[in-house]
């Protein structure tokens, strides 16, 4: 009787753990593949490592460039929306957080972190590891309805809010 319960418990637990692992592994696969190109260089500023495309070495002072609406042909339909749109700066417990999105023909093609939470050594590390995951999630979802990253709640929260405001600005 006890044995049956223990055996049943172990089998059920193993199945559930395997399922959880599998679900998590899917997300890792989704995040690591596109992010591989940028894996290097976490040492510099947190924003540099998270600016995912190798070409765009986003500087924290990107606020100066008049980005909003560049190149948008203001015709009808979302498909026509293109350009770079900055999100608002979100204040978090660990510092400010700001992203911008690159939109091509109504599709978010990149999310760049302009400012990442960087107060305290740990939050830099968190940002470096959370930002690529959040970026991939956002690109997959094509929206700001994405899940927070484990161990990076505040960073995720700021990222998602800023992302939402950028999407709003783009009118997607």
């Amino acid at each position: 009787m006890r044995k049956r319960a223990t055996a049943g418990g172990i089998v059920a637990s193993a199945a559930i753990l395997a399922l959880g692992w599998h679900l998590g592994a899917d997300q890792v696969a989704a995040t690591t593949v596109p992010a591989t190109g940028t894996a290097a260089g976490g040492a510099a500023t947190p924003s540099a490592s998270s600016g995912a495309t190798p070409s765009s070495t986003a500087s924290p002072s990107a606020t100066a460039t008049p980005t909003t609406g560049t190149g948008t042909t203001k015709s009808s339909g979302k498909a026509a929306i293109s350009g770079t749109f900055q999100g608002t700066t979100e204040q978090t417990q660990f510092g400010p957080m700001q992203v911008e999105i690159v939109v091509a023909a109504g599709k978010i093609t990149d999310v760049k972190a302009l400012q990442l939470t960087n107060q305290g050594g740990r939050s830099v590390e968190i940002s470096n590891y959370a930002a690529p995951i959040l970026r991939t999630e956002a690109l997959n979802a094509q929206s700001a309805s994405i899940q927070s990253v484990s161990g990076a709640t505040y960073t995720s929260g700021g990222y998602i809010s800023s992302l939402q405001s950028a999407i709003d600005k783009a009118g997607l």
Partner: protein
Amino acid sequence: MTSTLGTRSAPRLPHAPAPSLQVAAKSRRRDHRRRSAAVDGLSILVWVSGALAVALYLASPGAHILGSVSSVVTALGIVAGLLATDLVLVMIVLAARVPLVDRVFGTDRAIAVHRSLGKPVLYLILVHGLLITIGYGLADSKNPVGETISLFTTLDDMPLAYLSLALFIAVVVTSLVAVRRRMPYEAWHVIHLLSYIAVAVALPHQLSVGSVLASGTWQRVYWIALYVVALGAIAVFRFAMPAVVTFRHRIRVIDVEQIAPGVVSIHLAGQDLTRLGVRGGQYGVWRFWTANTWWHAHPVSFSSVPDENRARITVRDLGAGSRRLSRIRPGAFVSLEGPYGLFTAKARTAPYLALIASGIGITPIRSLLEDSPLRAHEATILLRGSDPDQRYLWNEVAGIARATKSDVFAMIGPRASHGDAWQSAEDWNRGVTLESTFPHLLQSDIYVCGPQAWTDLVVRDARLAGVPEHQIHQERFTS
């Protein structure tokens, strides 16, 4: 051993005629199968809840990225915290007196499991705090002390989490057997109630800092649902139900009868008491609303099965609180939690019945006997007292035994001096054993009630004799 007893009172006869051996055996087998399936189901549910706690973490974004030592340490810390939370909620449900748990498991066994989880859960909580601090510290290149300070100061909900840790330590330490024995019950109980606060103040850091429970995730929905279920069970079964029972039945003391030095039968009157569904052998947790006794709840067995308007419990002055009970006046208002317990004929699995009672342990045996439909010579009863004063309710038991053609033996005298026998010294020397007393021992359900050390010895001998575990029934009287 003397085999006859003086008789006087005429207890009520069992309500139903005894079913034939085959019919009884069949229904008992079926009941036993159902109960053990339910026990297994509930045990598996506990495993599943633990696995879900970990699996939900594994399924959350980023849980798989274990690139550095610090992230591995942190991940293990998170898992420890999630498992601890899950087990704390399991403990709450076990202590909630859920009727299903009482029916298949017995409240005493549920509480025993609740207790056995206390220390492991505390270790998990400590490991959680330690590993997270070390993991964060490695990431920040801070030592654990510095990291603790920064956790304490930079995160809003962390001071509360540390308070929760301190409360959990207090609750578990005061529940260690060695410590608890030295404390008055009330002091222990008040400290134990702090565990509700400990659970409550741990929650904010789980919701804000703990990203597995971050807002907008389905993990958060799951965990909050678990909290609602566990705390809801407490609210319903420990507070609402007893209140309903108490006000529905309006139980009052009508007489306090001294039946032996230090032992009183408390006679109670109430409305519609059969609706309580008390089975012989069960107990209630009683509170007598007088100036001296209202703050102490007593777990006491029914010493007879209640009828429409009357119930009776019998209690010995085991502590200061019980002593005050003997001074209760008729008319006192009584509140009741229960009935609880699986020390009943419902739990039987075998064709014969062996009842063994010592001292005040007679009370559930007395009502169990009354509530058991019996064939002639199906039941054999052994009554044990260390001196002639301890023959509480023996006359009543003898009366029921005569009416049901059951066999009764009595054994009076102190235990053998080597302290390793449940028999009296005299009967030990004569070679009296369970086998020699109970003619069908291996085909019997054995119900044992008495002081714990004595009960343990009887149970040990029953096991040595080869009685299957499911035929051994005991009620552990510790709350």
